[in-house]
């Protein structure tokens, strides 16, 4: 692995942080009242902190050019767990209102489990059904969390 790929992610990361800080600072300064140090407006702190973040982001990038740190993110290995684990959370958010906690739970566990390269269907399906049923009964029936249980009303 060459030195250039080793610090590329960190350089980009530092720049992203700097951009975020600059953006926050800009939005806060232009959209919110600044006020004075004595009577700070809504925008005072975010403008200041955003600017500080921008400087720090740049420093991270600069230092990374000299002394890189951290492993690069392996895009090919990263895509599957990233998409499926985050996807399972988002699916739960979108479906639980209509499908109820048991069915949504099964879907969530299956999608999340497929994020691992070692996932096997004959393990995933029984896992999903048992974990979802057990946690639904414990959390909703026993602890009384306000969830819809089954897909039908």
């Amino acid at each position, binding site marked *: 692995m060459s030195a250039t790929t080793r610090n590329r*992610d*960190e350089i980009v*990361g530092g720049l992203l*942080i700097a951009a*975020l*800080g600059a953006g*926050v600072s800009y*939005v806060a300064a232009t959209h*919110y*009242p600044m006020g004075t*140090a*004595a*009577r*700070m407006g*809504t925008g005072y*702190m*975010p403008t200041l*902190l*955003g600017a*500080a*973040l921008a400087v*720090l982001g740049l*420093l*991270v990038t600069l230092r990374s050019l000299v002394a890189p*740190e*951290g*492993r690069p*993110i392996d895009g090919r*290995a*990263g895509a599957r*767990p*990233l998409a499926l*684990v*985050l996807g399972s*959370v*988002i699916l*739960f*958010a979108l479906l*639980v209102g209509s499908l109820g*906690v048991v069915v949504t*739970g099964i879907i*969530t*566990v*299956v999608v*999340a*489990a497929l*994020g*691992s390269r*070692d996932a096997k269907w004959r*393990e*995933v399906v029984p*896992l*999903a059904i048992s*974990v979802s049923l057990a*946690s639904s009964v414990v*959390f909703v029936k026993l*602890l009384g*969390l*306000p*969830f819809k249980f089954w897909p039908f009303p």
Partner: protein
Amino acid sequence: MISIWDGVLHGFVVAATPINLAYCFLGVLLGTFVGVLPGVGPLVTIALLLPFTFSLEPTTALIMLAGIYYGAQYGGSTTSILLNMPGETSSVITCLDGHAMARQGRAGPALAIAALGSFFAGTVATFVVALFAPALASVAIRFGPADYFSLMTLGLVGAIVLAQGSLLKALTMVILGLLLGLVGTDINSGDLRFTFGIPEMSDGINFVSLAMGVFGIGEIIRILVQHEKEGGTIIEHGRVMPTRQDLIQSAGPALRGSIIGSALGLLPGGGAALSAFASYTVEKKLARDPSRFGKGAIEGVAGPESANNAAAQTSFIPLLTLGLPSNAVMALMVGAMMIHGITPGPQIMRTEPDLFWGVVASMWIGNAMLLVLNMPLVGLWVKLLRIPYRLLYPAIILFSCIGIYSVSNSSVDLIAAAVFGLLGFVLVALRFEPAPLLLGFILGPMMEENLRRALTLSRGDPTVFVREPISVVLLIAAAALLIVIILPTVRVNREKVFAE
């Protein structure tokens, strides 16, 4: 103000009610459980369980959550010793000599000394909390807004200095956390900031979403991406009881570890992991034959395991007396108290004596429970180690989803958690330690409130921070800490300590 003795007695009365005993047991049981499992820590577990504590009495909720934190210190050592893989970051150092002992067929005594040392340290730390917290609270009750602002500044500087890894990155994380803490309704003007027109965001970012996303989901993704090897060989532990010789050799390190842990637990940014490292370094320095370390020296287990447990408990002191969270787990405790309508601070001891003394007394009870859980029942936990991660993490994801969703029955919190999960993964991949982010997030709004209040009281005169005696002392301490860390010699030493 009730006397300390009355307070402790009162605490035991509170902590010994059946419901509090039951939740204390549940807490330490869960703590041991997540301590044993690599990749699941007390931070995530506490964040995960917060929503489920809504219906509990605040005292009961805090007793359980505290139990998870110190319980995890017990469980973490089991994994380190038997598997040479830390169950918790605070047990990393235990791998060295604990696993070496296990390879020599002395896993049982290593486990026993870890548990006994933790119990001893837990007892010491409980008394430290009971003795020092009231004194500190009576000083802190006189703090004005300027003093609080300076105190939090010191806290954040401490968190940066003592964070693992790069100082620059830790500072960046604190600032990012402070910014995330600004999202929502501005307390002074009532204006909305950075809510992107989403009504659910007007209360600010839900910190359960933030903590679960960054530390829970982000960490799961990291483990999957890096495809960390699973299993490994678990060494059979055999006979658990230590010999007389083991006990004699461990007494000194356990005592020193308890003192080191009790002291370092108080420091902002300190806590369990740092104390374990410090204790190991001290024991190695004090040993007549330092070369034994790393090859199964029992002192290398007794010291750090005592220190991490003591620190886990004394880190409650700044929280309960100053309202200042000293590490990310304590930041979650602030959240837990706020959920129940309790503002952490020096007034707690007067207004909520049940909560304060109940939690303190429960620590000792919890440690006694942990001793039983970890000595005779260690075999049970070993079985847990055989659950493969690929079956474990989907269940954690589902629990997280149910927990986060139930905070306010909104999918917005879950989507936010997914976004923070992505953030957490990216940060960890780039070697940004995310703990300071959570501290900044929790402390940010408190700091802004106190800063503005102080400046309003002084009519905009910023010299108020150097005119108030308490404030100026705290600021000087913060500045000194910063200067010290920038000095090259300390920097090198610090890197050496963390590298070990």
